């Protein structure tokens, strides 16, 4: 059996939405170099819709695949929908991750939440309750 599913390898080899958005409406960064994973997400928001999302990731194959999949799930969704994205949904969309790689999907969920928080702070719109108490996991 291969280490990763075909979906993971597809997103690792052909990651979607890699890059940077100049003048992004929200930027979130999670992780640190000591842990060996950093994810940075950029979002563009028009009205209530995330019209564009890009990422950069320092990390292993599953970290890159999780970021890619998360951006794909979020792109074109509303802010409220993005808020509901869970790491579990990312894992399922990737047809599974090895147990010790599940934290990569958690980072993807948290990077998106961090970008949303940045968006609400910058735009002055009212922060949803769910984001007010958000704290990323310590690795």
């Amino acid at each position, binding site marked *: 059996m291969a280490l990763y599913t075909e979906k993971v390898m597809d997103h*690792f*080899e052909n*990651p979607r939405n*890699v890059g940077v958005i100049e003048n992004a409406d929200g930027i979130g*960064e999670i992780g640190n*170099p*000591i*842990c*060996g*994973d*950093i*994810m*940075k997400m950029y979002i563009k928001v028009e009205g209530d819709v995330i019209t564009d999302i890009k990422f*950069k*990731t*320092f*990390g*292993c*194959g*599953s*970290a*890159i695949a999780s970021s890619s999949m998360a951006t794909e799930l979020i792109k074109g969704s509303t802010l409220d929908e993005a808020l509901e994205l869970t790491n579990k949904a990312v894992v399922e969309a990737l047809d599974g991750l090895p147990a*010790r*790689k599940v*934290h990569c999907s958690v980072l993807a969920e948290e990077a998106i939440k961090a970008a949303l928080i940045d968006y609400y702070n910058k735009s002055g719109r009212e922060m949803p309750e769910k984001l007010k108490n958000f704290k990323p996991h310590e*690795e």
Partner: protein
Amino acid sequence: MKVYADNAATTYLSETARTVLIDALDKYNGNPNSLHSDGQLAKEKLEEARQTVAKYINAKNANEIYFTSGGSEADNQALISAAKGLKDKGKKHLITLSIEHHAILHTMATLEKEGFEVTYLNPKSNGIVDVEDVRNALREDTALVSVMFANNEMGAIQPIPEIGALCKEKGVLFHTDAVQATAHLPIDVQAMNIDMLSLSAHKFHGPKGVGVLYARNGIRLINIIEGGAQERGKRAGTINVPGILSLAAALKEACDNMEENMNKVKALRDRLINGLKEIPYSKLNGDPVKRLPGNVNYSFEGVEGESLLLGLDREGICCSSGSACTSESLDPSHVLTGMGLPIELAHGSLRFSLDINNTEEEIDYIIEKVNQVVDRYREMSPLWEDLKTGKRQHYLPE
């Protein structure tokens, strides 16, 4: 192109080892402990193999060679025998390196739980331990020093003859895990004052599941597998005759050609090192000269090793990495951090372990693909962006 550059993980069987193995599966199928002619024929071959192994590590007697299931078992038995065998004499202290294989480190940890005290020495930044550090760690109650011959991850060769001489002078047992060194570097257990040594066949083109514990006569081994009188009563279990014959054949073949092989593989290694040097913000880990002929361990700043490894695998190149993501834990290589490498650089490390089967063409292909893959993942890395823009400081010069 398919390039196998992970020979420190395991090698492919040589033609000689394969022929001997397959031949023996039919011809020497008897149990060497059986009294009938089939058994005695197998026994005869087994003892020939024992002689061969003794000859190539220069053991004084063939009866100092104990066949095991591999390097890990040999390591376990060596440490357990030394510790428990000397406990009655009031010796409860062991010395080893922090960069040893886990077969050593985990056994040491178990012995610690049983009341033994272990000193773990860090090597210098080139991956080599200072003999004076070993000398200073010795105590009245030191039972054993166990120092690997050469490191599996970054290839540094330890000062084995010097440590052997020191241990002899102080009357302390000396074990070396020579799994990576055997058949690749000259080994002489008598001249080097090695009391116990572990080796494993599949690291020199022999089969998996077979290895050796050399234990100088006079050392009382303690069984870790009970149940029969095999191997002078010290290692129970029906003897793996085909594996052992194949081990001996592989050892003979590699040792008879050692000089030529070393020169060829060293040239490939240095070609690869010189090629990788051109990549900015990268670094060779481990001593550049006192290293295994085939080992190249490189760190690349701003990228993570597992993504590099998978990226290279996609290009047909098999290698390994010291990143946390390739280990069973979430920590990066204990070897690289043990020699003082910053964690960030340990995460971004790749190991290529070359061998006589590699070619110059393959080395050039590896260099080309590592360049591409490092570029690709640096481009994708927010850490690299921070380094480039000065938001974070580089560890390495350009």
